[in-house]
């Protein structure tokens, strides 16, 4: 007896047909994914690739070189802007993580009058258009005659304050969400075992908050590092940050030097994200 035709066909195909949830094996799904990746990453890859292009202009490939990295490295203005940006990002991240965590704890832990209004007020910087924040900051710092001619790093104080004020709400939101999953019984158990409020915070609450803190800090760091609008309004005449500097360079022409500097920034961000994810993963594994 011969096998029926469909049967033979299926055997020829070797692999069984995709199951109901095997979306990854549908052609249309793969095409959509490919398109997504192209749109997302093609510009970035081009940017990085052309930073190695041995040509003044970013149009045709002329050969591999690292001279634009060296050039960027020797561009004092660019390095200064870069240092400024990193300094601002590190300080504002540290401060906004602490403030954000405290706001989250306060909102999670206590009940007080007008709590809803307070919570909304805290989240306001997330929704206010950046341009409004920028103008408001500008008005505030000029009204208060905030000094702009201090020595480094104090000349960055206005920008740092502005960055803290728009990034701590993000930390607060992330940490608050994390706290919502905290089981109060752990806190009670710790107290029952003799821990003071402070020890409870240190030994039980903070370990639980850690993933939220890492995520929040990362968010604050990237927000600060690439902020343009608010920084533009709050920086004094002589302080330049990386995005502002790039903008002024691009106004003349997009040289591979800009590409190189941007590629370095991307590398730093990627490294940070990878570290954060690694830390979070390790914490998660410990919990499990």
């Amino acid at each position: 007896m011969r096998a029926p035709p469909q049967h033979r066909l299926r055997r020829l195909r070797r692999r069984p047909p995709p199951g109901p949830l095997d979306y990854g094996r549908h052609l249309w799904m793969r095409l959509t994914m490919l398109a997504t990746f192209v749109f997302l990453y093609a510009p970035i890859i081009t940017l990085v690739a052309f930073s190695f292009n041995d040509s003044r202009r970013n149009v045709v490939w002329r050969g591999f070189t690292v001279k634009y990295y060296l050039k960027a490295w020797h561009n004092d203005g660019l390095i200064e802007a870069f240092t400024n940006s990193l300094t601002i990002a590190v300080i504002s991240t540290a401060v906004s993580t602490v403030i954000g965590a405290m706001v989250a704890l306060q909102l999670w832990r206590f009940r007080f009058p007008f709590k809803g209004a307070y919570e909304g007020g805290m989240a306001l910087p997330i929704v206010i258009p950046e341009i409004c924040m920028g103008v408001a900051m500008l008005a505030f710092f000029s009204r208060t005659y905030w000094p702009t001619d201090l020595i480094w790093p104090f000349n960055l104080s206005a920008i740092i304050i502005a960055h803290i004020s728009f990034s701590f709400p993000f930390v607060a939101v992330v940490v608050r969400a994390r706290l919502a999953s905290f089981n109060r019984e752990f806190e009670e158990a710790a107290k029952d075992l003799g821990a003071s409020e402070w020890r409870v915070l240190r030994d039980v609450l903070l370990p639980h908050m850690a993933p939220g803190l890492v995520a929040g800090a990362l968010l604050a760091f990237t927000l600060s590092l690439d902020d343009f609008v608010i920084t533009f309004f709050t920086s004094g005449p002589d302080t330049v940050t990386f995005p502002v500097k790039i903008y002024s360079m691009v106004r003349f022409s997009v040289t591979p030097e800009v590409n190189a500097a941007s590629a370095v920034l991307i590398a730093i961000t990627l490294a940070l994200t990878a570290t954060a994810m690694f830390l979070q993963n390790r914490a998660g594994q410990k919990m499990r």
Partner: protein
Amino acid sequence: MNNAMNNAIVQVRGAVKTFAGVATAVDHVSLDIFEGEFFALLGPSGCGKTTFMRMLAGLEIPDRGEILIDGRDMTGVPPNRRPVNMVFQSYAVFPHMSVLANIAYGLKVTGVGAADIRRRVDEALQLVQLGGLEQRMPAQLSGGQLQRVALARALVKRPRVLLLDEPLSALDAKLREAMQLELVKLQHAVGITFIIVTHDQQEALSMADRIAVMEKGKVRQVAPPAELYEYPRSYFVADFIGKMNLFHGRASGDGAVAVEQLGEIKIPGNSSAGRVGIAVRPEKVKLFRDAPRPGFTAFKSTVDNIAYHGSESYVFATTESGAAIAATVQNESRDSKLPAVGDSIWCGWRAEDTLVLEE
């Protein structure tokens, strides 16, 4: 039963706790719990057992009344300064700490020296038979092991009183029985006062030296298990503990009670006139072919149903006056003869086995 029972280690006087918008969770509870005792709080869900325990631990502050532990007034004393430790219903073993770190935690935060910690943790691990699992994380433990960690973590502090909130409810029947035995053994070994919350009466009866039965925030009766079983004082307790034939009636005040659906019966002792509950345990009810001799309170009945339970059978019968009576018959030999459904029999019990209850 333990012997050193004259020294009250926990004294509760008129404790009240009301949650805003909810009924009173603990309603004027006064209790003495003695040193070295295994004390059980028993009651239906929501009767305030957990709330009462949490008040002892300091996690809930009573609205009124006072709590003395070891002779000291606990008003205003925070949980971390009370000589009690609690095993939580969900164990609350810290997920980010190893078994060792969990057990050592209570000693570490109170500044016990490292060498001392090591020794006491080892002892505790031995006590709950967790040796070899010190380095495991809680997520890698079974329910029974987690429970032992929670137990060891509390015991290692050597509290004056150990509070256990339904410690066995998360375990399967077999492990549960084993742990019941172990808990009793453990309590004898360490000599610490144990207060255990449970809504499983079998658990309370088999483990505790004394049991407090709670209903709607009130303590209905405090007694040793046998007394609670044989001499329940109120209708609620009689109904809650074990199986019971229960009737409502009216006492005449001269040693007789007019029982609804049953008629007038004689009661042991006396009772002042008024509404009473009348009860008798099914295993005290005997079945007779003919009217039994005097001294028995007996009723002519018809067998409705027989439920076979292996070691015993339940015979359900209805009296001529329409009252339902259940009797337990031990299946003492393989060919134990049971009446058949529809048989006409006499259900009777010795007059002194009749219980007279507060309504």
